[in-house]
């Protein structure tokens, strides 16, 4: 087999925090401290862990939102963490990100079509607004929204609708890798289920790969092919989802699984 779509080698992202000592000595927060994994073409890797374990930082580092301290990441064999912003820009089309908070992830001042059209023009996928609008309409339909809404502003939509628009912004570029950072955590259960189905469907249809970051083990099991469990900046266990959920090896994975409240359904309870 050829190279995986994404290969991450010993990624470290450290943050300088201001110290409190007399001279404000810098302290180092090792948010991500040596993470390696591969994501194959069309594969969904779930990254699960508790708050502060560094799982979001992995996603943010891969999209250049945080500076890498050390380590490498290869996309289709090309190292991209060390690229300049200018060099990295074409790759942004291929590596897209879905954010957690549907209320914060859309610019309140821009119309939906402006938000969705911007990446099309940046990456030269469209020349005219007519072209862009037809692409936007098609993408909105794919995520289950009425194309007519493109001339409206974000505040006119509910959280669920905004998250659909957020997903549309990602899908419109037809990326090869999508990083979903707690993409469904802010949603109520009944809406969350709609989204999990939608994301799964989009992923299957387009054959894209995905890094699905979440604290919710149920969600991760539902959507992923493989799962990595993170603790304090490091991956403690990684493997096929059935192995992780049915025969966890690491003590921490077992602790996580045991902590989840369960519902006993039906008469046998």
């Amino acid at each position, binding site marked *: 087999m050829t190279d995986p779509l994404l290969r991450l080698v010993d990624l470290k992202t450290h943050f300088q925090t201001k110290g*409190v*000592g*007399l*001279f*404000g000595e810098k302290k180092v927060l090792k948010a991500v401290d040596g993470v390696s994994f591969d994501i194959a073409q069309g594969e969904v890797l779930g990254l699960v862990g508790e708050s502060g374990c560094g799982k979001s930082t992995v996603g943010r580092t891969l999209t250049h939102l945080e500076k890498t301290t050390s380590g490498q990441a290869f996309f289709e064999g090309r190292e991209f963490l060390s690229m300049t912003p200018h060099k990295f820009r074409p790759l942004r089309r291929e590596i897209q990100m879905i954010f957690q908070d549907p209320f914060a992830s859309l610019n309140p001042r821009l119309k939906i079509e402006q938000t969705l059209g911007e990446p099309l023009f940046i990456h030269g996928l469209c020349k005219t607004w007519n072209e862009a609008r037809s692409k936007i309409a098609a993408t909105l339909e794919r995520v289950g929204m009425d194309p007519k809404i493109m001339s409206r502003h974000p505040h006119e939509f509910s959280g669920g609708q905004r998250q659909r628009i957020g997903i549309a912004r990602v899908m419109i570029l037809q990326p090869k890798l999508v990083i979903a950072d707690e993409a469904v955590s802010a949603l109520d259960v009944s809406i969350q289920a709609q989204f999990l189905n939608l994301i799964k469907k989009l992923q299957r249809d387009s054959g894209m790969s995905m890094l699905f970051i979440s604290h919710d083990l149920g969600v991760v099991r539902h959507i992923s092919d493989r799962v990595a469990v993170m603790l304090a900046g490091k991956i403690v266990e990684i493997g096929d989802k059935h192995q992780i959920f049915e025969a966890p090896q690491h003590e921490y994975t077992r602790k996580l699984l045991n902590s989840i409240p369960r519902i006993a359904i039906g008469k046998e309870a």
Partner: protein
Amino acid sequence: MLAYTVKRLFTLIPTLLAASILVFLFVHLIPGDPAAILLGDTATPEEIAQLSAEMGFDRPLWIQYFLWLGNVLQGDLGISIFFREPVLAVIGSGAETSILLASMTMFWIILIGLPIGVLSATKHGTWVDQITSSGAMLAASMPTFWLGLYLIMIFSVTLGWFPSSGFPSLSDDGGITNLRYLILPSLTLAAPNAALIVRLVRASMLDVAREDHVRTARAKGLHPARVTIKHVFRNALIAVAAAFGFTFAALISEAVVTETVFSLPGIGRLVVQSILRRDYPVIQGVILVIVVLYMIINLLVDLAYARLDPRVSLK
């Protein structure tokens, strides 16, 4: 807390140095020979030559700066053109008035501003709130000198309750009763600043009242007054303390005007008169003193802030 204090002191030094450079450059930005500017129109060429040599005006600017800074650190701010006295002594003669005026004003600001602010916040949305908060805004919209002139007209000229101008020292005849000279000026100066504090206390109390921990306090079954004072007002003080530095800056600015209106022999009037007299050594000296003073006040405000908010000093 000690570590925090020392740390803040250290961060003060670069700002202070940068500000001193600006004050130093001031004289050099005025067109003409700096020595002639510092000595005034009546100076003889010999005097100018002597001062030029003393201050190194023929040498590079940065050497001049260090010569000047050296003098300043020894307390030598130059000689006033108008008074023919050392600048420090001229400033010192105005210090008593200004310090007393500032203290009395602060007294009014706290005495008037805090209670009215609390009242306005607790009566939020009622006519009491509307009157106090619009009244405060009105007070903050008045030119201080205009208010001062009318206070003089009403309380000095018509009613004769207070003297209209001047301030004999506390060590002169009358002693402590001489403070009555400062009652109108300090009230004038306090009005707009107390008004700002009223608005600030009100706004920050309303903000704090929405915070979750206030709900916790109410869930304890505490008396509403206790919740207001111990939980809302106490936490609102953090924001108020942070703004006290600004209040002090406004106070210095407005003292310039107030001292002029009431003809008080303070530092503020000295600034204006020196500008009108083109007494540059005094202008430079006063500005330096005020800037240093203002920074010290800001440091104290920061320390008070850190005391009020444990999240700042112990993290």
